[in-house]
């Protein structure tokens, strides 16, 4: 893995990155190595072709890479949070926001029926017919939609998942 210090010095703004995301230096180095191995052409950016179009943006640089991955750290509940600091990236709310963004492609703050349908379609691939998808989407919106605007806002999203252990579902072990 190379010596930590030399790798760290290659990354610009690494202290700010660490502070913002909460990763330790060892983690940053590991992620950097991974970034480099994914970035086969050494452009300093990852494009959708590099990992099969998971991101909506066209390119991802290392900082964004780390920031996104930081969402998946297991949340620490023990430290009393300083309310003046911004919400940590891996808290429950942030994870929920991240998941919400996976649906909300046009970023209008609501999951519309069409967006929901698109996500459902891509998840269930060939297993269901279009009408079934629509019924399921209808039901999903019906269940969650409290203000009856036929779309799921972030608040409604959060409320529908309030009993789910998000921390468990959206965390990767090694990122601790």
């Amino acid at each position, binding site marked *: 893995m190379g010596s930590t210090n030399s790798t760290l010095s290659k990354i610009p703004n690494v202290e700010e990155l660490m502070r913002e995301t909460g990763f330790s230096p060892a983690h940053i180095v590991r992620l950097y190595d991974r970034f480099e191995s994914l970035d086969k052409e050494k452009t300093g950016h990852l494009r959708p072709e590099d990992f099969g179009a998971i991101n909506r943006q066209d390119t991802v640089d290392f900082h964004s890479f780390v920031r996104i991955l930081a969402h998946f750290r297991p949340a620490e509940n023990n430290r009393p949070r300083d309310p003046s600091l911004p919400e940590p990236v891996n808290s429950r709310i942030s994870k929920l926001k991240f998941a919400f963004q996976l*649906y909300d492609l046009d970023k209008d703050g609501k999951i519309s029926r069409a967006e929901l349908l698109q996500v459902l379609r891509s*998840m269930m691939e060939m297993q269901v017919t279009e*009408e079934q998808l629509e019924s*399921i989407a209808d*039901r*999903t919106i019906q*269940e969650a939609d409290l203000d009856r605007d036929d779309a799921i806002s972030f608040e409604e999203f959060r409320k529908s998942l309030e009993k789910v252990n998000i921390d*468990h579902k959206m965390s990767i072990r090694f990122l601790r």
Partner: protein
Amino acid sequence: MRGISHPTSGAVGEFFSKRLSMTMKLAVYFLTTGLTLLTLPCGSFTEVPSKPSGTVTVLPPVHPAGGPQAFPNAEKSDLPVFAMNYSRIQVPFEITLWVLLASFAKIGFHIYHKVTFWVPESCLLISIGLMVGAIMHAVHEEPPSVLSYNIFFLYILPPMVLDSGYFMPTRPFFENIGTVLWFAVVGTLWNSIGVGMSLYGVCQIGALEVQDINLQENLLFASIISAVDPVAVLNVFEDVSVNEQLYIVVFGESLFSDAVTVVLYNMFTFVAEMPVVETVDVFLGVAKFFVVGLGGLAFGLVFGFVASFTTRFTSNVREIEPLFIFMYSYLAYLVAELFNISSIMAIVTCALTMKYYVEENVTQRSCTTIRHVVKMLSSISETLIFFFLGVVTITTEHEWNWGYILFTLLFAFLWRGLGILVLTQIINPFRTIPFNFKDQFMLGYSGLRGAVTFALVFTLPDHIVRKKLFVTATICIILFTVFIQGISIRPLVEFINVRRTNRNLDTINVEVHSRLMEHAIAGIEDICGQWGHYYWKDKFMKFNNQILRKILIKDNQAESSIVALYKKLELQNAMEILDTVSEGTSTAPSVISLRKEKGPGKPKRKFVAADLRKMHDILSKNMYKIRQQTTEYTTKHSLPNDSHTKEILIRRHGTIRRSLRLRSFQSPTLSGGGYPSAPRSRIGQPSRSSSRVSLPLRRLDTLTEVSSSAGVDLVDERSGGRGRAGGRGKSRLNSSSSDSRVPAPPCHFDSSEVFHGNRDSMPEQEEPLSLSVTWAEEPSDHDDSSTQNPLLRRPRWNPVKPKNP
């Protein structure tokens, strides 16, 4: 929980609780016991001579003259009119009576719900056993010596283990499999070796007079008492809904610790006979351990797959479908026993693999039968063991040795506590959600000993010199843990406030979002180059879908869990509507109140037909062949309780009602026929009421045909079965129409009216009900039944992938 219990016992129970007091119940028990005891004495009941008196059989004196006898054979026996032949039926009879007795005990203490709430069932069973044992001791009877090694291992243990394996919650189990195996295997080893060594050390103390127990025997004893059986704890955990991780670790640990204990038991019994143990033997022991474990796994997998494959072809022999499950599991068990491999591992693995595929192949009824029978058999086994434990406690000769027994108790707790602490520290870094101290305390505290421990010690070979001491010590520790820990765990769980998990997560939202998150995590894990749980799970699901399911499941339609959950929820809503329909006059008030919302209305007769058809619409839209997934429930003493599904029913029904009400006042947005937008009040329509009455009834026939062709069987749906031929459903609905009401959404009548409107082009119909009309519309639009409702169609497997994978 009582939903599935037999009506007769309920009536009897009521009778008992009203008329008889507790003491009288005990008197009844004693009566039963007395009856049992009368028949118990083995051999004292000989064959009653069938002849009236003894002298008839005496040969006539031989005449010295040797003349021909008139009757050469004077033993003339009369035809026995009434005879008793006890010895012939003795064994099955006694077994039946014992089982019945234990089951009566179970009926008895479920009468008072509070009793089973505070005191775990195992305690109660042991107490009853103690009483029976006391009686038997008083009349100087011996309990039937039925508990031998073979009987326990071949007949009593398999059902218990099959139950645990079959109802193991698979997803949490596989997510926590590392932890479970770690605690089970390493934990049991730690406990056995630790306790064994300590006891050996204690044995060296001369004062206790136990110096003749050598190391092997100590180790053997220690391994026996390391088998954990936290049935009582699991019941409490389930009631309280403790967090899933803790639950599954305790559950899995009990199962696999049984397996490990049995292996150790066999190993140490063998070793105990050897005069000298060398290092080679130790290594061989370790190797044997692995062979035994992995071999059991392999056997189980093989049999599981074969069983699944067999059930693919059983659609014509549905009556014996459950038989295959049991035979294959038992076969796996026996074959593993043949090769001295861990049979518990084999049967558990077999059940785990089988369950998933079999439940897809087999009819709903067979599914229910299998689950029910598994529960029943395991319940019998467990009941018998605990009951017997109680009896034996009193009737065997004990060898009491204060020192040894107290030290056993002490070391057992000590080593378990230490073990949990150390093991948790080691494994916590590897877990996504580490165990906190409360969890660890609960883990340690749930180390109850039970059935397997007792059976193992009871069937120790007789060449172990201090067998009686071991039996006494084991019974002591079992009684201590079961009573003290079993009773105190419930208040402790509440007091400590362990992390809970919310089980009531049956909403589509949760399912969809969870799936999305899982996909996201799998992707992220891939990016990070890390092979975590979700990566393996993803890989396995792909393998499963592409290869395994095609081989093992007949007419393979891969069904996403989202779709399955959706179907299940819609079905429940529809069933709730059915429930309210058949409740008769009790729902009349709600109908009336609904009517009052819209204004004075028509006589009740109108509701009936229209509502019925409305219900038909809902059902035909939403009911189709549904596979009910195995509910995961793990108590050995009861079947699952579906009370939380009722909540969903009510919620969803409310949602439908609200949405219908809402949309009736909105402008319609659906395609398919122009519906005018003005909402119609029914106040001004009394004149046409009579004409509308006749039409709905006609319409009903069309709909029943339509829905029957869709394969809906409402009778079966009511009982939770899968949809079958619709003929029975028809008659059921028609017969219930006379006394049924539906607290329907107020727009019901609107739908019926609009329905005619579209068919008979009556222009006055203006009610806008877009949603319900759609439902009603579809059957009429298409002639062929196969396309009449999109949701009724099974999705066809598209050969072309629509987008990149």
